[in-house]
């Protein structure tokens, strides 16, 4: 898929008389600047999450919300993933693969974990990176809406999988 895309783009560029090398180089330069711009935010967010996780506070919270999830018919092995998903993409991906290891990719729990992971993004990370550490007025509205959506995703993933599979 990706090689074809690259070939297509370069070919279209050549047909339209685009100076391929200098356009490409300009893009790469912008990419490097982008990396430098998002690096500080990335560092702070990932450090905060690691402190929260390593202290055991995350596990404590998982224990707290597990009974609530149980009454909402969300299986308990999913709970760590639910809390990790908005915080860390890498962390939640490894949790998801752990779940698949333990229960199998075709189990109900495994499927719920996959649907959940595929239907939501790393909310805090995305917001932090996209706003570049800026703090526009009214951001809390977006954050609360995004978190409501995350919670809704968890409920729907469990319910839809129960219904379909």
């Amino acid at each position, binding site marked *: 898929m990706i090689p074809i895309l690259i070939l297509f783009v370069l070919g279209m560029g050549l047909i339209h008389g685009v100076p391929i090398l200098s356009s490409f180089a300009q*893009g790469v330069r912008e990419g490097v600047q982008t990396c430098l711009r998002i690096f500080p935010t990335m560092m702070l967010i990932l*450090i905060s999450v690691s402190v929260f996780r390593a202290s055991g506070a995350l596990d404590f919270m998982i224990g707290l919300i597990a009974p609530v999830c149980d009454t909402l018919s969300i299986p308990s092995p999913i709970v760590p993933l639910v809390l990790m998903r908005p915080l860390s993409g890498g962390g939640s991906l490894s949790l998801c693969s752990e779940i698949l290891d333990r229960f199998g990719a075709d189990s109900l729990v495994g499927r719920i974990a996959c649907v959940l992971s595929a239907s939501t993004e790393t909310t805090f990370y995305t917001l932090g990176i996209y706003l570049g550490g800026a703090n526009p007025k009214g951001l809390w509205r977006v954050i609360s809406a995004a978190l409501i959506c995350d919670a809704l995703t968890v409920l729907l993933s469990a319910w839809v999988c129960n219904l379909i599979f």
Partner: protein
Amino acid sequence: MIGWICFALIGIGTVYGVMHGTLGQITEELLSVPESVMALLLKTGGVLCLFCGIMRVAEAGGLVGGFSRILSRPLGVLMPRTKTDPELLACSAMNLASNFFGLGNAATPYGLRACGRMNDGTISRSLAVFLILNTCSVQLLPTTIFALRVAEGAENPTDILPAVWIVQGVTCAVGVLLVRLMVREGKKV
């Protein structure tokens, strides 16, 4: 706001660590993070640069313009500012299209550019809708999860797709409705 959230995470973690004697683990983990951030940056940054380069060529070749034209009408409704700002329209269109086809790395540079154009110190409705569409993940093909399911030996890795689409469709609709109710478009449109 993001700063406060980070402060809260570190604060809760540290206090919990003092109470439960896990400060040592926290320190160890904390000091390993900068290294892994560097590694992450090198790993994803390289691919990000590649896509930035390719997308620049695509833009110069007129491919991006096509996408913008297709998406201009729905985006005009969702994000009013794209009607008066063609560059914003192009960046938003490319960001959403890349996400839609599961090319997250290609989406990031466009997302950053689009947000940079809209972020003037206040959350406008356009910016809020754009952020919600990005945090809710509008993805036709969730490539990472497919790869994971293949690796874990799923019999039919793509059989979760209908469920993913239903969940995504509902949450995105709810998210957009929510921010439309909560955030007004700024005076500058």
